[in-house]
């Protein structure tokens, strides 16, 4: 028999033996129930609306706000710069591409924090890092940032600091009219200055979900 064939065969067998010997990589990248429980018990997964507001204003490039509400609600009102991934398309390729990058802080938000927490748990289980939940959700954001809630005269200076921060933030989002308060109903109005400018989403969904055909 040709010597070349013998050498190639030996090489293939060696490669095969190597595959048998090499340790199998753990394919289970999901968290175990124990690890998930630990993560759920950790309150640091919640971030306040003020912190998010601060980062939005500072145009923090490492912040990704993921709005998990249905697209219809997202259209009516959304946080500036947020990305809409409705619950039913959470696990699509496009949303994984948004959530996978490790250097970014992905913050889930929904009307309150229930849907956001569900989304958070799904991705925590998939072992995706740097994910958070915006405490009290979009409604909470409107209530704390967009509504005027002056502190009581008896409250301490921290409350006043927070109040002035929120007032400044409101001014930032609303433009000049800082004193007017806003709520969800008003936000339905298109010309309402309280609606922050929505950034155009550039969510590209791959239309090609078909696998490449094989065969000879």
């Amino acid at each position, binding site marked *: *028999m040709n010597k070349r*064939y013998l050498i190639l*065969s030996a090489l*293939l*067998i060696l*490669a*095969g*033996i*190597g*595959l*048998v*010997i*090499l340790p*199998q*990589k753990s*394919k289970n990248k999901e968290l175990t129930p124990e690890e998930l429980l630990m993560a759920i018990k950790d309150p640091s997964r919640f971030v306040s609306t003020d912190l998010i507001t601060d980062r939005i204003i500072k145009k923090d490039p490492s912040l990704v706000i993921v709005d998990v509400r249905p697209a219809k609600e997202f259209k009516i009102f959304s946080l500036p710069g947020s990305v809409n991934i409705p619950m039913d398309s959470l696990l699509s*390729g496009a949303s994984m*591409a948004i959530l996978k990058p490790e250097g970014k802080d992905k913050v889930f938000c929904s009307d309150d924090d229930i849907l956001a927490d569900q989304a958070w748990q799904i991705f925590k289980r998939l072992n995706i890092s740097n994910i958070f939940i915006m405490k009290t959700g979009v409604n909470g954001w409107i209530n704390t940032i967009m509504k005027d809630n002056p502190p009581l005269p008896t409250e301490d200076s921290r409350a006043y600091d927070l109040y002035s921060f929120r007032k400044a933030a409101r001014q930032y989002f609303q433009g000049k009219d800082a004193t007017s308060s806003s709520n969800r109903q008003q936000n339905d109005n298109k010309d309402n200055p309280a609606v922050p400018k929505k950034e155009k989403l550039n969510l*590209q969904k*791959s*239309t*090609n979900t078909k*696998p*490449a055909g*094989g*065969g*000879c």
Partner: protein
Amino acid sequence: MTGPLIPLGYIPEAWNNVFAVLLGMGFGFTLESSGFSSSRKIMGTFYGYDFVVLKVFFTAAITAVVGLLYLDQIGWADFSAMYVLPTYMAAAITGGVIMGMGFAMGGYCPGTSFCAVAIGKIDALLFSAGLLVGIFIFSEAFPLMEKIYESGNLGALRVNEALGISAGLFTFLLILIALGMFWVATIVQGKVKKVEY
């Protein structure tokens, strides 16, 4: 392409067709240069005078699987994320019998028939015409065959998982089987009367 470059957006989707053409040309060139545009060569496997088809396709399979598993080991590819076509047992057996009969009668598989058309073989022209007629009949009669088409669905099954062994061990066994087959094929080829073509 099934990924990861295009679905994740590293390469715009418009390149899909360009890649398809380039890969198709490469595939066609390889088929032609291996002599697969000759129906006599392909039929050699059936009659036992030329086993090059068996050797080429098994070599391709084991080379690809060994490469993929090593790439997975060093973390350049994710074997577990690979798309696996679902297995429809009854449909696969029915389709396999029909395809095999066509293969044995015509001397081409769909890919090689187009290669042979490219170099002007008349039998391949007829074969390809038949192929198109077949596709037409299948499409029109699909509602009648839908039950067979979707029967015996076992999901995205991998052979090693079905056997309950690791992918590495299965690959090793596959290499041994392939080399054993090559060896037997060479012996058979030596005993069968040579066919000149």
